[in-house]
């Protein structure tokens, strides 16, 4: 059982005119096995929340805390956060030319597990995970994210999540740019990892579409850099009907 606790998190970015505040006091607790949907309009700071948890150097933490099972996440380097069990599925996964998917996955697994996985079991582990996500085996020879379609990039993110076995996953707009088939495959992957590994999930999305496939336990409405309303799945249905207008005005 793991627990990610975010308390009064305040985050800014350095700009020419000084520090611009983006997150204005976020409070959120995610336990293993829970799905928390974070929904909000563009520019509300959802992605900043995701990147801040993962430790992107662009963002400056100006206040508050993030802990995973009591350990101070904000004190950790980016790779230490991954080792602690935090995974960020990115909205725009980065291309790394010349580094094959196979090499990348094995290097990451070696770093996280503290030793290189045994070649034979590893190869079959990767193959199996890829086939579950309907990925062509030839995929592993391609350079990381280079020339991938939107759907391939997102599947590749979920593949990593499946193999790297995090405790808490932050899925940043994993549904964006996916057609219905790809959305279904990716969502099934997320649900599978959740049930097999009792994963806690922060599911960041602009649309309610993905929530038909991944059922949230909690829905948080995000606007102006903080959570402005919380509820159960019924809140998502209301957002589907009414949109974010009432939150943006405020």
């Amino acid at each position, binding site marked *: 059982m793991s627990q990610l606790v975010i308390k009064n998190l305040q985050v800014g970015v350095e700009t020419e005119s000084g520090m611009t505040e983006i997150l204005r006091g976020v409070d959120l607790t995610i336990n293993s096995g829970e799905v928390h949907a974070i929904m909000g309009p563009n520019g509300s700071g959802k992605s900043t929340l995701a990147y801040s948890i993962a430790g992107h*150097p662009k963002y400056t933490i100006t206040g508050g805390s993030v802990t995973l099972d009591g350990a101070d996440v904000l004190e950790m*380097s980016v790779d230490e956060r991954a080792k602690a069990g935090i995974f960020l599925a990115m909205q725009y996964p980065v291309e*790394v030319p010349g580094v094959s998917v196979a090499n*990348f996955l094995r290097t*990451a697994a070696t*770093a996280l597990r503290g030793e290189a996985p045994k070649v034979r079991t590893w190869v079959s582990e990767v193959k199996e995970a890829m086939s579950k996500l309907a990925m062509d085996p030839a995929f592993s020879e391609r350079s990381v994210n280079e020339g991938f379609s939107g759907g391939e990039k997102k599947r590749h993110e979920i593949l990593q999540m499946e193999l790297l076995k995090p405790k808490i996953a932050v899925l940043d707009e994993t549904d964006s740019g996916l057609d219905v088939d790809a959305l279904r495959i990716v969502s099934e992957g997320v649900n599978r990892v959740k049930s097999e590994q009792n994963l806690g999930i922060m599911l960041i999305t602009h649309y309610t579409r993905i929530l038909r496939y991944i059922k949230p336990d909690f829905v948080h409405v995000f606007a102006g850099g903080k959570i402005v309303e919380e509820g159960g799945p019924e809140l998502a249905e209301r957002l589907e009907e009414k949109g974010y207008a009432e939150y943006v005005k405020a």
Partner: protein
Amino acid sequence: MSVLPTNYLTPSGREEAWRFTPLKRIAGLHDPSTTVADRISIELIGNARPGFSISKVKAADLPAKSSTDDAVIQRVRAGVAEVTHLQISQEAVVTEPIVLARKAGNGGEFSRTVITAGAHSKATVIVENAGEATIGEEIELRLEAGSNLTFISLQEWSANSVHLGRHHAIVGRDATFNSITVTIGGSLVRLLPTVEYSDQGGSAELLGLYFATDGQHLEHRVHVDHGIPNAKSRVTYKGVLAGDQARTVWIGDVFIRGNAEGTDTYELNKNLLLTDGARADSVPNLEIETGEIVGAGHASTTGRFDDEQLFYLMSRGIPMADARRLVIRGFFTEIINKIGNEVIEERLMSRIDAQLEKVGA
């Protein structure tokens, strides 16, 4: 000791061709008042095999076929009494690479090598340069009709070495020239990878990789002379620089003469700067005298390390140093993989890793 010509000008450093090169560091190789030994330090590794032969011939019996205005190469030509001649027989297919290695000693050395790829032959020649040397050299590669030659030159010199060289290919009818130039070691390396075509249908691919750290000056001056119709050239050079006073120069001159209709050429240079204090000069030049061509283009980029790539890799648990190593290996992979020899590929990658470690980048 060689007899030196007096009828040419010693570069002063102000000439376009020399303006990037720190002449003080080239051990007088350009200067007629210095003496340079005439010695042949290049040797075949392993036994002779069918399909090729190697011999030493009098320089006068095997004069260079191409012209050059490079002062050091002119000195080399004037100063060398014997030339190493590697001949690949007509129609021979030499499966294993032919490896030539240099065992250069102290003091300056001038050296000329001619590699002739007989008509319709196919071979790979690797020249390994390691250890300490001060050398001026010319390698002329003569590709006869329909031949296919892969030429790999590895500069893995020790820290104090000085190497000025010209690797000139004359590409015959329907011949294919592939070259891979790797420059990692040496204090100052200045290479002229150059190509001309002697008949139609020739194709040349010039790949290069260089990695300069503290104080190294690594210079590559590519020149492709399209003076014949319907020939093709591709140039891709990639460099990484790290550490104080790391310096690289890449010049990519492509000349499409008026009669060279149907020319197809593209050249690319990419540099990655890992630290402050390093400097990469990149100058692509395309001179076109005819519009009747298939294509001509060039691109050059010099940039910093991509922090987003590092973040992505680190967010999967990969420590910073390993992430950097992965990205740099990836940057060079496209070129290294074409060497097609795992032992050499791994050795070069290890050398690159060691360079990285040295500068703590």
